[in-house]
Structure formats: structure tokens, C-alpha cells
């Protein structure tokens, strides 16, 4: 049995060598984000009265509760500071560690590198164990670093640890789950998608549960992201809740190990079916669609469900915003003055941010196809570089618009079901489309990197993270306007609020066009890279 784990230590070192920069940046990012939020809130709401008022506004606002969860203790400065980061941060942590685990298990297997290593003195469970050790360890470091940063910002020690460990254990739970999904599919992409769908479902479950009942109902308790909230950091510090993610890991890890020890290298539980002996594909656009359609359709379905859910609770947000402080707070949350419209605008803004991730992911296929040596094969045929790049870019750019349209439509339908008023369906679909140019700017930036510095393409995710953080938390932190202006999301119109300015659409669209154009110039001139 011990033989199954032989070589785990070497693989841990290999994984840390490959990820040292990335993990360090992520951990610093999380810790920094938590500390900044806490420090900013302390400054913004110095006395308990103002905090209670802000917290009560949040708790009475269905859209905010659905997106972020409630503030469990209105008098607690910690609970108010971090309500936006509790579930949201847990979800990002989950995504991060899903990526880490798949990257060092199934992705290595698919690339054939584990075959090479496996021929040495390497146990069957070594890669899985090493990936989990790295993910668990990094989760804990992330949690402790965040706790430290919160304590430094002046929050209570116990609550800070409860919060940090909440993030850490969410990471551990989803890393374990990814350990299982890595065994199920033969493709790394599919294994990752399965785990990410679980993250999305967990987020949606707690949204529904939190809206249904102030403290969350049974649906919230089904969600590992809900557990993070139920720890109630700074609002009771319920340590025992951390047993739930621990139990989830205790189930998932042995399951993953049993699955791994029973299967062949390279095999999954879901086996490949035979394909057609004759192909219908006859163009690079057809191929790009074939490669991308599953992801695009999944995003559209996700946005439809997410949008409908948000739309259907939008009527519960009206009628309690009278005080100027409340309006000011809402403004700082990214909305505008006009009540229900402001909440819908906040929802659409979130969609605008999420869809940018889709645009980046879809356009990144160009980079992936080149790295995998597929571009080499295609460009040796009578296909121009421009046409090949366009085949994926069109899907990314049109996909962004399509997914947003579906999302906006779903918000409208949800609102129709809730209020009986069909009038907003069209308006919301159009309002959602106003988020398109900001997402295109990031797609364009990715293509610029691809065209000139292909090795730097992954940097786009860092840019995305900064743009999200600045857009989402900049107002709360009172960041200088020029810093805020760096984020494309800040320039998206706050539709459907009636006084939203559409002016930002022009520079955003122009920027996207220029970035894409410059990207093409570089791409047509540069050497193709080889795997």
C-alpha cells in the first residue's frame, strides 16, 4: 500500500516549482483583498449606528443577499466588511483549487507527462496525493494569510481566523471534489468543467436558500459555499461548521483514491465512444464551433438559470430606500439611485464581469490550439492565419453577446414571473447587451497578448482579477478615479437605470477594436510556436 504513494514528495516539489509564482500571487491577492475591504469599511462606517443601517439595507435587499449573502450580525464591523467576500471569495477559492488539482492530475496525464514519470519509482496514487497535498497546504496558507491581514486591519482575532479558515476549508472541500472529477473523465477540460459546475451549483443553492430565509435554509446547508457563510465569522464564530467541509474531504479523498487505483493510466469512468468514420467538418469555423460549442452552451444555460433566479427576486427589493445614507451606500456598491432598477443594474453588472471570463476563456482557445500543436496542422493547409484566428475570435466575441442576451432575457422573464409585468423583458435583454463592449476589451487584450507575446497570454487572468477587484471594491475603498478608470467594467453603462450614461460604450468599443487590430498585426508577423 505504501508503494502506491511512492514519489509523492518529489511530485509535491515539482508542483510547487511549477506553481510557486502563481500560488504566491493568488494568496497575496486574497489576503490583500480581505485586508483592504476590512480597512475601508472601518473607515467608512466609524460608528455602530451607521454600520447597523448599512447592514440592514443589505439584509433587506434580495438581490444583494442572493449575490453575496446577508450580514449575519449588523453590529459587527467584521461581518459588514466582509459580507461581499464571504461567499464570493469562497467561490473564487474553490475555482482556484479546482484548477490546481486538475492541473497536476488529469492534465498531466492527458499530456502524457505522467506516463513518463510513472515509469520511474512512482506510486499509482502519487500524482493525486501530491496535487491534494499542494492544494490543501496552499488553502491553509491562504486562510492563515487572510486571517493575518484581517487582524492587521483591526478586526478581532477569533473572527479573522474563522473567516480565513472558512475560505481555506472551502478550498479543501472543492480540491477534494476535483480529485474525484479528475478520475471520472479522460479529458482535463471535462474534469475541470464538472468540478466548476459543482461550484456554480453550490453558489446558486446558497443564493436561493439565503433569499428564502434570512439565516439561510436547508438549501444553504447543502452548499459547501453556504458552509463558509454559516461559520458566521465575526457573528458567532461557529467553528463546528468547519467539520462539514472536513467531512466532504474525508469522503471525496478516499473515493478519488479508490477510483484512481482501480483504473488504468489515461482511462476514465466515462469511456470514449467511437466517432464517425467520415467527417462533416469542412472549415476552420466549423472546427472552432465544434471545439467551443459545449462550453458556450453551458455558459448560456448557466446565465439563463442565474438570470431567471435573480429576476424572480427583483421585486422584493423595492420600497425601503429612503435615507440618503442608504442611497449613498448603494451607490458605493456599484448601483445607481433608482431603486429596483439599481438592483437589476447591479445584477447585470455582475453578469458583465462573469461574461468577460467567458470571452477570455473562449479566445484563449487560440493559445491552447497553438500550444497543443493543432494550429501547426491547420496552418499547413490552405488556411490563412487571419481566418483561423477569426474562427475562434468570432465565437468569443459573439458568444459574449449571446450569453449576455440570454442572461438579460432570463432576468426579464424572472421579473415577469415575479411581478406579472412583461414590460421589462426586452429592455433588460438590451440592457444586458450594454455590458458587451467592456468584456470585448478584455478579449481584445488577450488577442493583443496572443499576437505579440504568446507566452504572456495567461497574464490576462491577472488583469481580469484586477479589473474585477477595482470595479467591485474600488468605490468601497475610495480608490482614486484614475485607478477605477483602468477597469473596463467601470465604463459600462449602469442600465437599466433611466439616467445611465451610454457615453462609455464608445471608448470601450473603440479600445476593443484597436486591441484586436493590433493583435492581428502581431499575429500575422510572428513565428508560430511549437508544442
Amino acid at each position, binding site marked *: 500500500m505504501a508503494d502506491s504513494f511512492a514519489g509523492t514528495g518529489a511530485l509535491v516539489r515539482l508542483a510547487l516549482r511549477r506553481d510557486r509564482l502563481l500560488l504566491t500571487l493568488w494568496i497575496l491577492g486574497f489576503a490583500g483583498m480581505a485586508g483592504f475591504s476590512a480597512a475601508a469599511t472601518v473607515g467608512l462606517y466609524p460608528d455602530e449606528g451607521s454600520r447597523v443601517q448599512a447592514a440592514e439595507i443589505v439584509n433587506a435587499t434580495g438581490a444583494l443577499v442572493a449575490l453575496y449573502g446577508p450580514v449575519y450580525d449588523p453590529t459587527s464591523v467584521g461581518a459588514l466588511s466582509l459580507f461581499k467576500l464571504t461567499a464570493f471569495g469562497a467561490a473564487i477559492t474553490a475555482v482556484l483549487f479546482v484548477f490546481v488539482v486538475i492541473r497536476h492530475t488529469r492534465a498531466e496525464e*492527458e499530456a502524457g507527462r505522467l506516463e513518463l514519470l510513472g515509469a520511474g519509482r512512482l506510486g499509482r496514487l502519487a500524482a493525486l496525493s501530491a496535487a491534494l497535498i499542494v492544494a490543501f497546504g496552499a488553502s491553509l496558507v491562504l486562510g492563515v494569510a487572510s486571517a493575518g491581514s484581517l487582524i492587521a486591519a483591526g478586526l478581532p482575532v477569533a473572527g479573522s481566523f474563522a473567516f480565513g479558515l472558512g475560505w481555506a476549508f472551502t478550498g479543501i472541500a472543492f480540491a477534494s471534489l476535483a480529485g474525484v472529477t479528475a478520475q471520472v473523465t*479522460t*479529458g482535463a477540460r471535462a474534469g475541470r468543467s464538472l468540478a466548476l459546475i459543482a461550484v456554480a451549483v453550490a453558489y446558486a443553492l446558497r443564493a436561493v436558500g439565503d433569499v428564502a430565509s434570512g439565516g439561510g435554509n436547508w438549501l444553504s446547508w447543502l452548499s459547501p459555499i453556504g458552509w463558509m457563510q454559516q461559520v458566521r465569522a465575526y457573528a458567532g464564530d461557529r467553528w463546528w461548521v468547519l467539520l462539514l467541509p472536513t467531512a466532504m474531504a474525508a469522503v471525496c479523498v478516499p473515493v478519488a483514491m479508490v477510483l484512481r487505483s482501480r483504473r488504468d493510466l489515461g482511462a476514465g469512468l466515462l469511456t*470514449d*465512444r*467511437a*466517432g*464517425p*468514420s*467520415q*467527417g*462533416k*467538418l*469542412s*472549415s*476552420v469555423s*466549423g*472546427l472552432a464551433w*465544434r*471545439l467551443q460549442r459545449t462550453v458556450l452552451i453551458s455558459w448560456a444555460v448557466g446565465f439563463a438559470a442565474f438570470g431567471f433566479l435573480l429576476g424572480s427576486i427583483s421585486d422584493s427589493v423595492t420600497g425601503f430606500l429612503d435615507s440618503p445614507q442608504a442611497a449613498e451606500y448603494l451607490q458605493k456598491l456599484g448601483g445607481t439611485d433608482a431603486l429596483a432598477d439599481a438592483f437589476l443594474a447591479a445584477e447585470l453588472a455582475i453578469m458583465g464581469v462573469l461574461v468577460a471570463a467567458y470571452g477570455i476563456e473562449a479566445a484563449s482557445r487560440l493559445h491552447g490550439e497553438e500550444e*497543443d*500543436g*493543432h494550429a*501547426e*496542422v*491547420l*496552418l*499547413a*493547409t*490552405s*488556411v*490563412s492565419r487571419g481566418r483561423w484566428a477569426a474562427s475562434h475570435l468570432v465565437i468569443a466575441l459573439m458568444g459574449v453577446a449571446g450569453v449576455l442576451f440570454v442572461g438579460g432575457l432570463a432576468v426579464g422573464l424572472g421579473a415577469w414571473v415575479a411581478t406579472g409585468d412583461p414590460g421589462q423583458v426586452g429592455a433588460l435583454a438590451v440592457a444586458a447587451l450594454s455590458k458587451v463592449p467592456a468584456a470585448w476589451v478584455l478579449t481584445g487584450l488577450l488577442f493583443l497578448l496572443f499576437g505579440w507575446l504568446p507566452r504572456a497570454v495567461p497574464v490576462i487572468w491577472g488583469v481580469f482579477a484586477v479589473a474585477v477587484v477595482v470595479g467591485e471594491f474600488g468605490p468601497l475603498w475610495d480608490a482614486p478615479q484614475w485607478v477605477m478608470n483602468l477597469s473596463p467594467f467601470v465604463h459600462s453603462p449602469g442600465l437599466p437605470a433611466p439616467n445611465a450614461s451610454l457615453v462609455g460604450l464608445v471608448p470601450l468599443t473603440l479600445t476593443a477594436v484597436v486591441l484586436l487590430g493590433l493583435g492581428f498585426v502581431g499575429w500575422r*508577423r*510572428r*513565428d*508560430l510556436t*511549437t*508544442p
Partner: protein
Amino acid sequence: MAAVIDVQGVVKRFGSTIALDGLDLQVEAGEVHAFLGPNGAGKTTTLRVLLGQLRIDAGHMTLLGRDPWADAVELHKDLAYVPGEVNLWPQLSGGEVIDLLGRLRGGLDPKRRQRYVDLFELDPTKKARTYSKGNRQKVALVAALASDVPLLLLDEPTSGLDPLMDARFRQCMHEYRETGGTVLLSSHILSEAEALSDRVTIIRSGRAMESGSLAQLRHLARTKVVATVERMPDALAELPGVHEVTVDGQQVSCQVDPAGMPALLSVLADAGVQALSSQQPTLEEVFLRHYQGGEDG
């Protein structure tokens, strides 16, 4: 007709690494041209330059009379390429990949496609994910051979094939040449080059060391001569082009450059030669001489 491939003094750098260092390469229409060299000599880089996937830093080259970089799309209608490392989309079946690549090249003949699928015993319904290296290579070969193109660029196309499939590949190459096609075949398998090619270019460190027919190349290497003589000649070792002289009783053996052969023979005749044997260099010796650095031939 002009050379199908004409590369003159091409330089390609990757940062501080010089991959091609003034490469010359001429491939005539209708010939199978073997492109030989050790690992890292620049064979694949040359093919990728010819495909317009890499931009050259200096030199001049044409492919079918046109510029491989600027006219890549038009040129690729007339050629098919089999990469050394065939990477396919894991979720597509082999048949789908063959048809896609064929259509992107401007169409493929269904009868030929079927023939080559059968010849290489390829199961086209399997997903590319499940293919071995050899089977992925077969997919690329079938896609290339089933297209009706006048030029094939093949990068070590048999490195994953078993001996039976290797023989089938050679058969395909003979047939292809019958139809007047031109092939640039990068390889380091000497027997393959010997069996298939009309002419050979040997490349080392990004530079063509030799180019010519196999007979010409053989001619460039030293012949081993063993003679039994009545009296030992004094000046044998000083003769130009004669090397490694060893004497064992009445028997003398040495290596001789082609240029030194007439002088050696007349000296041996004067010495009363009784028996003489000469051994032509094997192809291996020709290559080893070029592959191993530092030795001046």
C-alpha cells in the same frame, strides 16, 4: 522547370540560438529528396520555414516559385505536410480529422482516402485521444496522400510506424513518385533514405554539409584499401589523401580520399601489388563523418 524548393543562405534565429545558419537546399521537381541530420540539426525548423510558419532572418527562398511566407495560403493548396509530432484534437475521430484536413487543402478524393485507410489498416472511427503515436501519424499520412497535391513535406513520417506499415509507406512513396510528385522527406533513418530517395541533403547545426545523389555522397567518403605487396613502399603515409596506414607483414591497409586514389594505386603497382581489395564506404560512414563535429574529412 525550376527547383520546387530553392533555399539559399537562409538564417533563422530564436533569440540567441541560431537554428538555421545559412542553409542551402534545392529540391527538383519529381524527386524524392531525403533531408538528413542528427537531432536538433534544424530539419523541422526548415520545414516550418517552408510552410510559412516561421519568418526567416536572412537569405532567400522560394517554394514552387513563390514566397513561402507571403503566399502561404495559396501554396498550401499544392502541398501536404505531415508533422514529426502529430497532434490531433482528442475529441475528433480519425476519419473526421482526415476529411477536415483534406477539405481545408481543397478537397480529397474519397476513393484514394478509402484506399489509404485500408492500406494503413487505420480504424477511422476511433477518437484521436485513443490513438497511439503511430496511428496519429497514419491519420496525417492518409490525409496527406489522399489529397491530390504535387508536393509532400514529410517530417520523420515513419518514426511511429511498425515495420509492416513502414513497408507500406515506402510503397506509397514509390507510387507517388510514379505520378510525378515531389517529396521532401526529413529523416534520420538511413536505410529509409537509401531505399526511397534520389538525392540527399545532409544538414548539421543549421547548415547543409553535403548535397547530392547517394553515389556522389559515397564518393565523398574515404575508401578502405587493403593490399598485399612484394616490398613495402616508403612514402605511403606521405601521399596526399592517404590516412591511417597500418602495416602487418606484407599486408598494408589504409583509408584513402577519392582524390588520393590514383596516386595510391600507382605507388601500390610499383610496390608489386599481389592482392588488392577495396571497400566502399557505407552510408553510415558518410553520415557519421558529417554528424560528428570537429573532424575535417
